[in-house]
């Protein structure tokens, strides 16, 4: 019987009522008395020296409050990077200053060159056109390999080169890996591009800065996945505002996908300018601005080699990747191609030796940072593509080759520094074979061929490291912040509960799923419980939502806080029931004394806590509110197996996805409907990356996919009906809920199966095509068929 509430129930998403009826409250809905508007003048060239900026005429235009340039921000800090990577020679990465407004040099199209604060947006925009820029253009650095060559133009003159770091992992294994590859019976090599993407959340970024002279209080309303992280970075590193004088509010946020983790210049600007002009300052990104100022994702160029023995056992993996950082280091940019990528290179397989080399490059492009999956999709893609290629080269079934090499015993310590706590890759693969009806593929292929279409089947596995992250471990790896989370469970006098959480919900459904957990623990209805999130003045200092961490880390904090609450409530109940604490049981919202019919309701106990007339005041404090901070002992390791079936039109190269199946192991599942929804969305983005999305620059550093006219987002009719299953559950062994996280799986797990399927289809048609770079557009498929 499916449950109708609590853990395991598909409770309907309560937040959807406001989202779907236009009653959500987003940052752009915030309008404050006396508010001004900022228009940013953005660079339309990729690389230039700024000789001068003349704002005289602009400042005199109607409605202009103040014009700002880089010179106004010389005294404040740069936008910080939150992770210091150490290169393979033991040196810290090169870390350029990242100014709020360009000062002296323009380094990418879209960089802020000046800002006009006006009474109206139109006036600010008019005035920006009157700003006179004197620029000397420089050659743009766009291609990563060219950027790495001696003598290349430098993005940052004050750095030694365009190489942010040259990272080796595990450096000590380098020689052993080289040797294993030399000794191998077979080596499969694949060179590929992991295409640059623009996250494109439905809601563009918005920031409203506010300053109160009466109490010297700064408030920033912003579209963020993690208001406390923004307060920390902006307050401590950029503007020098102590925490108690800075409030950051992220109300309803219309999608983040990683791109709203980062601290952006516009946030610092609005906060700074609000004090400077002593009025609120609002910025709402246009979609065009979003394309050239939201951090982009992916953008790796990789060579991977997979070595095997004569029996097709994997013996070593060696990779070399160029990872684009863009012009500056965004908040977590440096960690994505390293600790979120290299550590996942073992995948689901027991390859004994692995060496990952990553050269992070500065280029004259928008900064690149985490996007749904962040590093893990890049690792999964290359690994699952090279395995597929290896299976073809060896003439073995790609599923069998994977199975043969699966990790089967847990815990499993990989050669890339992580330890998988639990998993059952055979189970998810078997489930996939069932739900994808792999046995029926041959018949479906025959049907397609009868229609003149080529049909292909692609399969892949994936593993990810979620529940980010154990603070002591990431601290050793260079993280400049802790990655625990926090929750306060506040029980009100009549028994209803507010839970203040550090996690931020921007589509994930926390407002529904978190109360399910508390409801299960206490036995009161879900609607008696509310989540409060997104405001640093209301919530404990938690680190927000990314890396599929909300439930695994913040949910664990919530459980711990609720346990403290329940323990205390039991003491109160024991007092009321004149029994011993140890004998009190809580079930269905009733405290009872074991083995008796004596009981007291949850609401009576909570009332007693706040009206402590009959209360053990000598032993316990009144009130019922507890906070817990939770720092995970390890990452969690969701894993699964995905299958995609495509049809290729041999005349046009057009690929259509006919079937898509996903068998995931997320450990325990709180709300199966929400989990399915997360997987659906992730797959949509994965298919988008595989077939459609392509953020492209020309050699001058102009963004040529700068609008939806050229940047193809997946639409409903590009996508099939998915079959998703998460009944294979090996609970996480180290968090109280046994949960692993599901937010990124779809985006991580889907691109390889799509491309594997296309290659399978083309080969079935006699075309010797072994790889096509994403997005696998009709034009690329056609070129590949023609060149085969």
């Amino acid at each position, binding site marked *: 019987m499916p449950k109708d509430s609590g853990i395991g129930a598909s409770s309907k998403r309560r937040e959807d009522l406001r989202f779907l009826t236009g009653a959500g409250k987003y940052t752009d809905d915030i309008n404050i008395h006396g508010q001004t508007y900022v228009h940013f003048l953005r660079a339309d060239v990729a690389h230039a020296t700024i000789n001068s900026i003349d704002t005289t005429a602009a400042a005199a235009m109607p409605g202009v409050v103040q014009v700002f340039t880089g010179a106004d921000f010389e005294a404040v800090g740069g936008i910080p990077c939150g992770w210091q990577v150490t290169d393979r020679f033991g040196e810290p990465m090169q870390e350029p200053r990242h100014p709020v407004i360009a000062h002296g040099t323009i380094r990418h199209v879209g960089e802020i060159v000046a800002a006009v604060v006006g009474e109206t947006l139109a006036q600010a925009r008019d005035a920006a056109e009157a700003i006179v820029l004197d620029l000397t253009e420089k050659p743009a650095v766009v291609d990563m390999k060219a950027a790495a060559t001696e003598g290349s133009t430098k993005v940052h003159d004050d750095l030694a080169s365009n190489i942010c770091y040259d990272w080796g992992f595990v450096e000590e294994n380098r020689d052993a890996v080289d040797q294993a590859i030399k000794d191998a019976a077979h080596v499969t090599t694949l060179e590929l591009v992991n295409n640059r993407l623009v996250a494109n959340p439905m809601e563009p970024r918005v920031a409203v800065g506010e300053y109160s002279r009466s109490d010297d209080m700064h408030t920033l309303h912003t579209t963020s996945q993690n208001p406390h992280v923004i307060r920390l970075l902006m307050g401590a590193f950029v503007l020098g505002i102590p925490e108690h004088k800075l409030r950051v509010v992220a109300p309803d946020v219309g999608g983040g996908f990683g791109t709203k983790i980062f601290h952006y210049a516009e946030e610092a600007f609005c906060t700074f300018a609000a004090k400077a002009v002593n009025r609120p300052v609002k910025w709402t990104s246009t979609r065009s601005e979003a394309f050239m100022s939201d951090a982009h994702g992916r953008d790796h160029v990789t060579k991977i080699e997979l070595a095997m023995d004569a029996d097709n056992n994997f013996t070593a993996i060696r990779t070399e990747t160029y990872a684009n950082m863009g012009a500056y280091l965004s908040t977590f940019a440096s960690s994505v191609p390293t600790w979120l990528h290299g550590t996942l290179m073992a995948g689901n397989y027991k390859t004994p030796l692995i060496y990952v080399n990553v050269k992070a490059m500065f280029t004259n492009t928008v900064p690149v940072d985490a996007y749904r999956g962040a590093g893990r999709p890049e690792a999964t893609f290359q690994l699952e593509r090279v395995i597929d290629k290896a299976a073809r080269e060896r003439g073995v079934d790609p599923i069998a080759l994977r199975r043969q090499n699966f990790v089967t015993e847990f815990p499993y310590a990989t050669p890339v520094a992580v330890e998988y706590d639990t998993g059952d890759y055979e189970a998810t693969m078997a489930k996939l074979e069932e739900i994808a009806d792999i046995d029926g593929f041959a018949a479906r292929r025959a049907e397609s061929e009868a229609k003149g279409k080529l049909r292909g089947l692609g399969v892949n596995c994936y593993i990810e490291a979620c529940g980010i992250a154990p603070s002591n471990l990431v601290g050793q790896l260079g993280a400049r912040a802790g990655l625990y989370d926090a929750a306060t469970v506040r029980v009100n006098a009549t028994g209803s509960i507010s839970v203040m959480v550090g996690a931020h919900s921007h589509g994930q459904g926390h407002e529904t799923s978190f109360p399910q957990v508390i409801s299960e623990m206490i036995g009161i209805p879900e609607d008696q419980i509310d989540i409060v999130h997104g405001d640093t003045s209301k919530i404990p200092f938690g680190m927000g939502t990314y890396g599929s961490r909300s439930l695994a880390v913040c949910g664990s904090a919530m459980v711990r806080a609720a346990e403290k609450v329940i323990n205390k409530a039991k003491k109160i109940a024991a007092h009321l029931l004149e029994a011993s604490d140890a004998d009190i049981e809580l079930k269905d919202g009733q405290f009872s004394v074991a083995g008796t019919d004596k009981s007291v309701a949850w609401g009576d106990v909570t009332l007693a806590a706040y009206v402590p007339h009959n209360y053990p005041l000598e032993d316990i404090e009144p009130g019922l509110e507890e906070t817990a901070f939770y720092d995970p002992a390890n990452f969690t390791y969701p894993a699964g197996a995905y299958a995609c079936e495509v049809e290729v039109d041999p005349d046009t190269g057009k690929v259509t996805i006919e079937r898509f199946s996903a068998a995931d192991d997320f450990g325990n599942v709180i709300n199966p409907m929400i989990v399915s929804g997360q997987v659906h969305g992730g797959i949509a983005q994965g298919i988008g990356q595989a077939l459609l999305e392509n953020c492209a620059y020309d050699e001058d550093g102009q963004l040529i996919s700068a609008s939806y*006219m*050229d940047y193809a987002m997946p639409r409903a009719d590009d996508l099939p009906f998915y079959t998703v299953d998460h009944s294979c559950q090996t609970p996480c062994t180290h968090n109280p809920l046994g949960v692993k996280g599901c937010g990124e799986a779809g985006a991580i797990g889907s691109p390889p199966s799509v491309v594997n399927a296309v290659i399978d289809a083309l080969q079935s048609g006699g075309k010797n095509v072994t790889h096509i770079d994403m997005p696998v557009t*009709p034009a690329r498929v056609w070129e590949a068929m023609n060149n085969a």
Partner: protein
Amino acid sequence: MYAFEIERPSTIADAVNALKGEDAQALGGGQTLIPTLKQRLAAPSVLVSLTGIGEMQGVCQADDGAVCIGGATTHATVAKEAAAHYPALADLASHIGDPAVRNRGTIGGSLANNDPAACYPAAALGSGATIITNNRQIAADDYFEGMFSTALDEGEVITEVRFPVPQTANYQKFLQPASRFALVGVFVAQYADGVRVAVTGASEEGVFRWSEAEAALSANFSASALDGLSLPADGMIGDLHGSPSYRAHLVKVMTGRAVAACQG
């Protein structure tokens, strides 16, 4: 957007008058012009809205059987009202953009704009349509003058478009994946006096007639008539979404499919 005045005339004569003003510009459905204004790429002082002009609305059939479409008729209206008279044209209109675009965008706006990837130019050229303006009639063959360029004079308004109805016709649109305009679109129409083949999306010169295919199909109206033909890649558009040779190839494939669809 820069500030502008808006005029809403109710007759063609008033519209033509209003358009005589300096920097005045016609506004159809605004599906091309409004985004351009928002990006501040144009700065008309007056917009003259054509959508309130009754004489420029709707679909009817002339005595000679031609389908006449008012210049301010939306794509959605054409999709609905031309279906009985000229199904291929109605079908083309029903696949332009999305419902919002179809409910606003107009045939006159589309033909005046002459986007090299737009659909209506292929239908007009492929049908040998007549573009009727406030002061003359222009044969489609004389109307399209290259990307975003037409025979229209300053202030001239497309009031009606007349499509002779073919025996059979079909439009095949291969979608540009992002914009969903035509990466290549081919309109094939068979008339008693021969076959017309108009191609959009492909050429740097905008919509064009593929005369070799027309000759071959006029002699033998079947997809196999195209077998020996090929279109040179020279002069085809090359961009993020396809090379010139890919577009040239698609023209042939889409032409064949259009012919097959005519026979299906």
